[in-house]
């Protein structure tokens, strides 16, 4: 720890309890460790077991000091739910990038009329100048036959925007299945590839 600034890559993963946010961050952490980085990972999970918001912070670099990402400094945000993406978008640094699942998870406080769900969370983020890539990861997962595949689709979509390289990230995902559920490896690889393709066709140019 010399008196120089600590340069890190900061990845924020957000969503709703039960969507696989924590697992996705674990995979990213494993990839960073594989590359020899120092890693810190911290969660802010609400008290709800299911349906509450979950934000997971991952920081890696030569040496990581504080575990939590400061507002305005995330390099990448991977958001599993559209309104949570909007809520957490101030964590992105100028020039950072958001990978957003367009799925909307409506909580009871909205469905019973106490609060309103944002009309167009993705549009509102763009209007705020957020550079983002949006995909229907839930739709991809449904097409492939298991809602849990949204996780791999989201990581696939983020793959090109992380300092790992898509191959390493995919290898980390598959490693998780190799011992416990090898039969799920192939379908997860397909979800990863589908997520990656879903954003490849989009440009970031329009974003400000």
């Amino acid at each position, binding site marked *: 720890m010399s008196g120089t600034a600590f340069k890190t890559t900061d990845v924020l993963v957000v969503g*709703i309890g039960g969507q696989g946010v924590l697992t996705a961050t674990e995979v990213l952490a494993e990839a960073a*460790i594989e590359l020899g980085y120092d*890693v810190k990972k911290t969660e*802010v999970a609400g*008290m709800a077991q299911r349906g509450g918001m979950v934000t997971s912070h991952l920081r890696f670099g030569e040496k990581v000091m504080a575990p*939590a990402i400061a507002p305005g400094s995330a390099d990448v945000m991977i958001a599993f739910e559209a309104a949570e993406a909007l809520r957490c978008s101030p964590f992105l640094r100028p020039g950072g990038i958001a990978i957003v699942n367009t799925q909307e998870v409506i909580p*009871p406080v*909205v469905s019973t009329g106490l609060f309103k769900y944002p009309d167009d969370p993705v549009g509102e983020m763009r209007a*705020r100048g957020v550079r983002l890539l949006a995909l229907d990861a839930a739709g991809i997962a449904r097409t492939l036959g298991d809602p849990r595949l949204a996780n791999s689709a989201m990581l696939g979509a983020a793959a090109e925007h992380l300092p790992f390289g898509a191959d390493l990230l995919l290898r980390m995902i598959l490693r998780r299945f190799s011992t416990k559920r090898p039969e799920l490896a192939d379908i997860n690889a397909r979800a990863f590839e589908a997520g990656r393709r879903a954003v490849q066709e989009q440009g970031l140019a329009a974003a400000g």
Partner: protein
Amino acid sequence: MNAIRTAPAASRLLLSGNEAIARAVWEAGTAVAAAYPGTPATEILETLAFFPDVDTHWAVNEKVSLEVAIGASLAGARGFCAMKHVGLNVAADALMSQTLAGARGGLVIAVADDVGLSSSQNEQDSRFWGRFAHVPILEPADSQEAYDMTKRAFEISERFEVPVLVRLTTRVCHVKALCTVGERQPHAATGFHLDPNRWVLTPATARRRLPKMFERDQALAAYTEECDLTVELPGEDRKVGFVASGPAALAVREAFPDAPLLKLGMSHPLPIGRIRKLAWAVDTLVVVEEIEPIAENEIRAAGIACHGKDALPRSGELAFDIVRPAVRRLLGEETAPADEAAPPAVFPRPPTMCVGCPHLAPYYVLARMRKNVLISGDIGCYTLGAGHPWNALDTTVCMGASMGIALGIEKGKGAADKDKGVVAVIGDSTFLHMGMQGLLDITYNRGNITVLLLDNRAVGMTGGQDHPGTGRDIRGQEAPKIDFAQLVEALGVKKERIHVVNPYELPVLSRTLRQEMAVPEPSVIITNQPCVLIDRFQKMTPFAVEDDQCNGCSSCLRVGCPAILVSRRETSVAPNGKEKVLNFVTIDTAFCTGCNLCVNTCGPGAIVPAATVSKGDRR
């Protein structure tokens, strides 16, 4: 979990602070470890349970967990206990006296402060115990330090014959970071050394122990000046220097990498000499500590000028984005907070009870009789009964308080409340932790209280841990099981006033509660269905809504089950001109547990087994 246990020495693992502490406790050769679950410390003991050579227990409460650890220490073995901040209030009686007698085998207490109150009823600073109990405080900032300091805590405990507190915060317990682990060093128990003048604390013996405790304070004050757990991190910039501890020290180093930092690993006793040296070397000294200005006040008392809470918040985490602007403003480098765009307005996602939770029914029933009842509550998932849509909980203070507070309300209520009954709501584990004594007080003092004992066979809020009422120990092995009906009878509740009820049988629960509230003596109604998140819970056939049968009456929404969703809202006008909002609902069949609760509330019979629904909303 297996990797934490089996990883050989020198392995570098991604561990949470809690996991790192568990590994360190095992490596230290600890014989006995005990805890009562409490966020954010719960996983320490859960992880330790995977190490077969540590006798690991769930204790009934924190006081007992400390007493167990003390006993192990007196036997000459190493003893450990872990708890959340408020747990040490419960354990304080044992701590405040045992500190006079001191420790034999290493005696270490890990205490986790919920800085920022993510899951607690207060935000208290456990470092106060250092001064109060004359014990050293170690303050790790991350997993590696949590591991290193826990091992060292045992050594300090034995060297100075003192209980040692390892003060954690949520950001140490739950942050995962790389940690290099070592090997287990067996530590054989040296045997119970009979010494009644030391271990039997009476006025006469305790008085003789006092000077020894003060000598120990002196020795620790000398040790902290040389202790390598506290480190001087160099910096070229002499405008400002910092004294900081825990995760706040990491934020300071990141925000001011060129400023000298005295990072306190041992924060009680304070190394005043080292602090004085730093103060001489810098223009401005800033103390950055979560939560209370404990070090700051002591530094000032030593005649050293410093800043601290005059510039920094008194509560909550001192993260990078808090510390940097606050100190820059103090130094005059930044005049006002940066002008930022308003954050996006997004609805809240408040914590809810789970789909099919067995606590839903009691609150549904209590909400229906809201005007006629005062409800004292307790600590657990069921505290959520205070919220929407039930609004059926009037007090929550601390573990077990529902009992005594109910008795006090009943005895003290005036004319305004004379027609209201008093109900106490408490969970199984909380009842065993500290509720039993309160119930005994109710029966002994002829209180007219109806107790709802919500037995979901788990410590639910912390993740479904076992306790003496579940029939399983911390490792999931069969264990002696307390019978709640017998227990409350033994505590003086008449047999005919004790009812064990299936909460999903709504009419029975409702009838029983009304009947017992009408009887002017203590009653206990025990609900007997398991937490939906534990392995004992079994899902039944889910339900769905016949779209054309739902009349929008909203009765089912008063259950508060998150699987019931509003699909359409309409306003209807009754013949008398009164407007009424109709909520037409669907059920999220994928999550529905088939508990049947909402079916009981549906007038038109629109809620039917999902397999038989004719069309519409299956998701």
